[in-house]
């Protein structure tokens, strides 16, 4: 889980609130090919709770989670198959 994975795209949703955090993440994932990784910078709290669950529901896979700058976290989400 803690392995360093090169990401194929990066997204910062720290200026957004629910549900836009997930909507933007979802749209970004849709631009990737299966198996590619999206790095998402999120605030702690609600997005950290909702984005991983929504990603899992839609067949993607959270491959890493680590703290970012103060109050933020970095998620790596590997795009699932269609």
């Amino acid at each position, binding site marked *: *889980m*803690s392995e360093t994975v090169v990401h194929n795209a990066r997204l910062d949703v720290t200026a957004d609130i629910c549900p836009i955090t997930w909507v933007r993440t979802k749209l970004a994932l849709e631009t990737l090919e299966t198996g590619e990784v999206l790095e998402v910078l999120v605030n*702690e709290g609600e997005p*950290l*709770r909702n984005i*991983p*669950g*929504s990603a*899992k*529901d839609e067949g993607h*896979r*959270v*491959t*890493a*989670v680590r703290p970012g700058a103060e109050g933020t*976290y970095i998620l790596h989400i590997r795009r699932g198959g269609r």
Partner: protein
Amino acid sequence: MTESSSAKTPVADLKALKAGGFIKQRQPDLFTVRVRAPMGALTAQQLKAIAEAAERYGNGRLHLSVRQSPEIIGVAHDRFDELVDHLALAGLSPASCGPRVRAVTGCSGCAVNPLALIDTQALGEAVDRAFFGQTTHGKFKITFSGCPNDCTRAKCADLGFVGMVAPGLDEESCSACGLCALACRNGALSSDANGIPVRDRSSCVGCGDCVRVCPESAMRTAAVGLAVYAGGKHGRVPRIADHVAAMLPSELVDEVVSATLDWYRRNGSRGLRLGHVIEELGVEEYKRAAIPAPFRVPASAQRQTGRIVR
């Protein structure tokens, strides 16, 4: 249509009318007719029938009650029978008011809502079928919420049921990523020396956030049940319900409703709500009478409801 629908029949028994969901208006001879929509659920066809009824028998306007019942405004008392027949064709009937069990309310539940942990719609409809309209000492409101977020305010109902899960960890699959602990809003999860989450049962409300976020599906739903809240009310003096049961299996819901109504009828008197009786006799006595022992929440573990806990 029956004889009683004749315009000559005086509105003699307001109480009887109110029992059937006919509510007196400020305007003489006009009533608001509350339509029973258990769990706030209606088909499009039923909504059309209600709209037609409002145009034909009312003044073309509706109001949505705070407990999910559509109300047809401005119905003359001599059109009650026609209106009831019209509603019956769509499988609808008037709701209740007065001192009785009201239509059961609830959220859309796990068939629709991704956060819901139980099938509120099916559970609530079954309770509505079994208990709707029964006479009690005061209003008796039953509400179901699919998860501890409790959007439908089960904690303010006479009897509230809230979906919950008992999470269980498959340590073999756990990658120690820590996401479950970060996601937990109640601080119920902490990581041990190896990064494996440890759950503090007394802080866990059973919302299932940890299960939903776990990338490895190592945190799993070990069991699903209901938290039960009793004795809540709004009105002039609101009262937050007592947290009386946890992880109640859904098969026991009817038994709890039935035992609660029995205890309330035995120990209450006209005009008192369940919350009043619980205040008088103590919540422990209520729990002994109405909640099966394995699922009772001990007084020491009763969830704090009077202050905001983060």
